[in-house]
């Protein structure tokens, strides 16, 4: 999967769970901006696992990995 394809899929998942219909900046904190809250994070993680056919181990369940689009993309890229 190319970086562009990963980016598009990550954005699609974040928008699916976001509180507003807008495209965040790549480095914007999805939580500090209020786009995501703590309780949708587990659902976002589950959606990432399903979309990218990966199993995210508990050791990697660090919210910083999912703080922004750029961080999610970097993490997913490291696992695919």
């Amino acid at each position: 999967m190319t970086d562009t394809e990963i980016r598009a899929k990550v954005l699609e998942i974040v928008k699916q769970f976001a509180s507003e219909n807008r495209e965040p900046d790549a480095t914007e904190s999805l939580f500090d901006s209020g786009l995501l809250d703590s309780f949708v994070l587990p659902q976002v993680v589950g959606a990432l696992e399903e979309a990218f056919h990966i199993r995210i181990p508990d050791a990697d369940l660090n919210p910083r990995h999912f703080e922004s689009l750029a961080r999610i993309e970097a993490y997913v890229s490291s696992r695919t």
Partner: protein
Amino acid sequence: MAFIQAFGAYVPPRIVSNAELAARLGCDPDWISQASGIAERRYAGEDDSVADLAVLAARDCLAQAERAASDVQLIIVATGSEPRRFPGVASVVAHRLGLLDGVPALDVPVASTGSLVGMVVGNALAASYPVILIVAAEKMSSLVMREPLDRNIAILFGDGAGACLLDAERGAARIVDHALHSDGAFAGSLALQADGILSMDGRSVILHASRKLPRVIAEVLERNQLSAANVPVFLMHQANQNLLDAVARALRVPAARFFSNIAKYGNTSSASLFVAAAEWQASGGFQSGVPVVFAAFGAGFHWGALLAAGV
């Protein structure tokens, strides 16, 4: 394997509403209820100790079981909010309850998962100590309502105590199976520091709890050829209504199967499981052959589940 004979509970009479707390914290009361499902919580008096709360819940449990303090052969007390490092409150609670001289009193300083750990330990020791009283008591207000106030933490917690009596030979339900797990890699995500400051990375706690609780519940159920669909009642640590709902969603069962009283009491840490169980038991409780799952997750991280079946 032991039997659950009764539960008991005590919550202080002082009710602290979201409006009162929001005024103190400088936030919106509606934000508190949306973020947690909590409408109010109880605060103990300034002079009330963790042991005071524990003794009152223990007495209620003994009364519910129609047992005397002198029947108890082992007491286990869970708390994360007792300010004294040692000795723990267990021996004090035993003494104040009037347990027989020499009855062992064990402390379980595990915070939110403490009551579940107490049930598992008690179940394992029931062959040697046939009547075991497990108590969980917390005075969280003394931790979260001290300067510097952290509104994200302060809104969640309340004070209370609960208890459970195990008997090796008889009771309302039989403990069938259990599973406990721990992962110290995230010990810093929720901790009471030496300086008395309670720190919490809420996102980390929720992320791990939302994944680990459904998994450990499924682990215990599958081992006993059951699925979540077979379980009409889940009694879980009352951490946050949104977490209860998330675990129900992950297990694909209606949220209503997860007993909830968090709106009234907030998160009372280790006490919440027994306070919930006592209210549930008072409204009907165990039925013959019907499975009930207990589950908890908290600082450590420690988490687990216990399967019981009505007798």
